[in-house]
């Protein structure tokens, strides 16, 4: 995982073949929470193969992000995290950059998810005297099709950059 960024508002959108069904068959998918996770339309996923132990890991502060999602007041968005409590681990990189967990979202709630992420980043920006770099990777699933979105750059330019792309309305 790259530690740093000098990007301002880099957005890359590519075709993807990831969907919710494929996630349900992942080795790390927690069977004990299957019912809850299958109701979710916004899932946090771990990164795989980024450390020597090869175990799935989440970026640091994902637990905080997950708690933020659970407390976010919105009737449409159902957020969950795709890991058991026992298997949950964070990879700390100690760079002044926020890596959010991989996200998979249904296209219908994509605007809500962007609003949620923007709110979370706004909170992170509060209390800081300098800007904040962020990496956001999400897959938007629309039926059989899906697109992967990678944003890297200033936290305060995330929302406007995504909206300017105008691809998911």
């Amino acid at each position, binding site marked *: 995982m790259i*530690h*740093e960024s000098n990007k301002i508002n880099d957005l890359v959108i590519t075709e993807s073949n990831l969907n919710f069904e494929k996630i349900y068959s992942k080795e790390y998918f927690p069977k004990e929470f299957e019912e809850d996770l299958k109701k979710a339309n916004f899932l946090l996923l771990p990164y795989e193969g980024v*450390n*020597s*132990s090869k*175990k799935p*890991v989440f970026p*640091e502060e994902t*637990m*905080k992000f*997950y*708690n933020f999602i659970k407390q976010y007041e919105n009737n449409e968005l159902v957020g969950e*995290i795709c*890991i058991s*409590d026992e298997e*949950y*681990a*964070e*990879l*700390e*990189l*100690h*760079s*002044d*950059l926020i890596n959010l967990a991989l996200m998979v979202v249904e296209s219908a709630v994509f605007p809500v998810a962007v609003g949620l992420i923007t709110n979370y980043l706004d909170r992170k920006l*509060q*209390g*800081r*005297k300098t800007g904040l*770099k962020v990496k956001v990777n999400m897959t938007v699933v629309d039926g059989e099709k899906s697109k992967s979105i990678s944003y890297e750059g200033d936290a305060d330019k995330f929302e406007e950059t995504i909206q300017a792309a105008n691809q998911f309305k």
Partner: protein
Amino acid sequence: MNINQITMYLHQFKGTELRSNILDELSKLKSIAVNQGDQEEAKNIWCLEQIYKVKNHFLSVYKNLVDKEFFQAWCELERADIELHFLRMHLDYTGNKYNLDHIEKNLNQLPKLFPYKYFSSRESIVKNWTCSICNNVITLRNSCNHEVGEIYNGEQCCRIAGDIEFQAVAIVTDPFDKYGVLFPEGLEYNYAILENLMQNWTSPWEKWEYQISRDLIAEYNGLGRNNLCLCNSGIKYKNCCLKTGKNLHDHFKFLFHDKDPKDITNHAKQTFNSWKN
């Protein structure tokens, strides 16, 4: 000292050494407040403790700069910044209350004058967290009710990481914590900009600021646009360093608005690299 006296002392303090017993006194006062169930007073005392720590670290920064202990000054800067960050969400200090605006400005300005560019960054996997307030193990789906950053019984809540698996060390330019400065063998950092500053910065409470302009590197002076570039690229100056800006360097100018001009040591323009050798 009672709480009002300590508050006034910290607000008005403009010396070079804080009284060493203040934290002990605040600790006793906080115990009383907690025992009385006065959470608001306990939080107020926590804020005073933080103010003391921020000021104390800032004074250490200044003292270390005077003593030319630059790396130690750097570490104290980082510590002051962290303590101020903890305080910021709980105390409105606009209007330079407790001189915190002044300190904050210095904490912003000073790091840019250090020659450090590369840092080591630890990479590790953390699998276990406990709450610093209740000591309960925190898992994804089972957390206590204590919120990270909030103050409970006069203590700030944080998560204590455990079961840490070290992975690697990376070299980065913008680490989260700034202590891991690299000191390459055979190279010596050049602190000339800080040394110049300290010739005129005569008190930690004296105001100063700097301006940075982008000036032409002397060697490029008079070089024609169509001449070959001085960097030996083999292409014309206008298509090379003139275009990329590599013909320019940062020029720091220190400004002391409240100082009598005759007390200022002026310097002819000097150029420095990050390294002495």
